[in-house]
């Protein structure tokens, strides 16, 4: 598949010398959902702002649909819809007017039928004549999405779309994103909620301190980085792990009633068979067994801490 968005060695250095982006290279394919995961201040918003034209990059290049964002800014920006992190809306305006404004600003002729479709999909249609200030926080966020979609963009940026919204609305937002993907829109979203990336993204990029640490298919990432844990529940509690089992680096949990064994699913041998054998010869009897796949969160924490590949 062809890349719809291509970022090459993008650097953003502020006047004070702070480097918000230090050489980011990234390709995004048409129709995919990419989640950019990273802690606060990692450079997620700076990356988006630079692609959209809100901040100017120091060096490097970006093309959207083949159009350079500097020399071909009109064509590149026409393809992009941006939902900012903060709720930036004119409080006295009516919903329909602000959406019409956005559409016109991006050079599209008036098309109220299309805007009606967008507003209906976002459950905003019956609020179309309300003033922004009369809306709830969740509704305002939908208005931002409606504005971003008003000019029929091919690439949609969602900058922390679910920051500070309740669980119900978050699920709603995920549904909206899934719907957009189904209609062929390419979506790049930033988040620091790992479960969000896990739930909706096709690929995941991890960004920290202005550097893109990795970009991978979500499943591949989970498998590649995946650690599994085996929990062995014991019939009787023990005070310490027997010396005979020291090589397995077991962890004693649940007030001595269970042992945790971590292993790598990629390995030829997981070591489970020998562990169980050694367990029996050490005189321990097990009551139950369970395994647990590590979540993206564990991977993420590991990466950002800097001790993962």
């Amino acid at each position, binding site marked *: 598949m062809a890349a719809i968005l291509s970022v090459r060695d993008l650097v953003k250095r502020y006047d004070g010398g702070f480097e918000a982006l230090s050489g980011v290279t990234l390709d995004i394919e048409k129709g995919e959902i990419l989640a950019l995961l990273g802690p606060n201040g990692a450079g997620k918003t700076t990356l988006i702002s630079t692609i959209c034209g809100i901040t100017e990059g120091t060096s490097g290049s970006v093309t959207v649909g083949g159009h350079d964002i500097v020399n071909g800014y009109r064509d590149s920006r026409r393809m992009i819809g941006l939902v900012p992190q903060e709720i930036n809306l004119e409080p006295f305006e009516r919903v329909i007017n602000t959406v019409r404004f956005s559409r*016109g600003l991006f050079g599209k002729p008036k098309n109220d039928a299309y805007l009606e479709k967008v507003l209906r999909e976002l459950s905003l249609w019956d609020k179309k004549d309300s003033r922004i200030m009369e809306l709830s926080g969740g509704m305002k966020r939908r208005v931002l999405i409606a504005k971003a979609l008003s000019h029929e963009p091919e690439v949609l940026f969602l900058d922390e779309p679910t920051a500070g919204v309740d669980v119900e609305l978050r699920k709603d937002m995920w549904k909206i994103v899934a719907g957009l993907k189904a209609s062929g829109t390419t979506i790049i979203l930033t988040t620091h909620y790992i479960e969000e990336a896990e739930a909706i993204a096709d690929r995941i990029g991890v960004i920290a301190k202005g550097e893109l640490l990795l970009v991978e298919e979500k499943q591949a990432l989970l498998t590649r980085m995946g650690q599994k844990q085996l929990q062995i529940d014991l019939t009787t509690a023990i005070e310490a792990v027997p010396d005979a089992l020291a090589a397995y680096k077991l962890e004693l949990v649940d007030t001595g009633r269970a042992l945790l064994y971590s292993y790598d699913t990629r390995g030829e041998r997981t070591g489970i068979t020998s562990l169980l054998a050694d367990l029996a010869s050490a005189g321990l009897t097990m009551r139950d067994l369970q395994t647990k796949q590590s979540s993206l969160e564990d991977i993420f924490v590991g990466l950002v801490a800097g001790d993962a590949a």
Partner: protein
Amino acid sequence: MNWQAVRSIYVFEMARFFRTLMQSFISPVISTSLYFVVFGAAIGSRIDQVDGVSYGAFIVPGLIMLSVMTQAISNASFGIYFPKFIGTIYELLSAPVNFLEIVIGYVGAAATKALFIGVVILATSALFVDLQIQYPFAMIAFMLLTCVSFALFGFIIGIWAQNFEQLQLIPLLIVTPLVFLGGSFYSISMLPPIWQTITLFNPVVYLISGFRWAFFGMADVPIGLSLLAIAGFTALCLIAVWRIFKTGWRIRK
């Protein structure tokens, strides 16, 4: 040119104006009436005539200019400052528009509002004094140019301002005094010679003088100089705005 965008900005900005239409309409009518009561009737009855024109009529061009300039500045500066203040500027910066389109949209709307108020004041004045306009086209041209150039100036103030106090600072501290000292209510020839010379450094003098010439065919400074002054001011503002957008000063991080 992305005319669709220009139109959208213009319509959006005018909507703000129409929301407060009654205020926009009534306040200039009242303040003009007050000026006529104070300057026209109370003081003017003792002044008789200035350069062969009744004092009441003489102050009309100055009154219009006073309102047009302050309105153009305040509308344009607020128009661009507000999106900066509430953060909606992100949309403008990420839109496929260039600086000229943004300026035409915002400045055009602000100038339209100022022009509207200028016309309202002119109409109100006609109720109080017997007005003749010798060069109607020149009058309209002068008013339009003033609306546009001061809206441009206001636009620059709006970008420069980092809080609401700064937004008011230049209009209050510089523009209002310049307008009052610019011959709105008197002819320059009425001043002592030394002040006549000093006054010539006030750019507003050229605008009011030229505008008054369009009404009565007489001016404090040659009409060509007035035209040059306003053209120069417009050009200066345009260059400043162009530089601002080129460098992203105070709008782009």
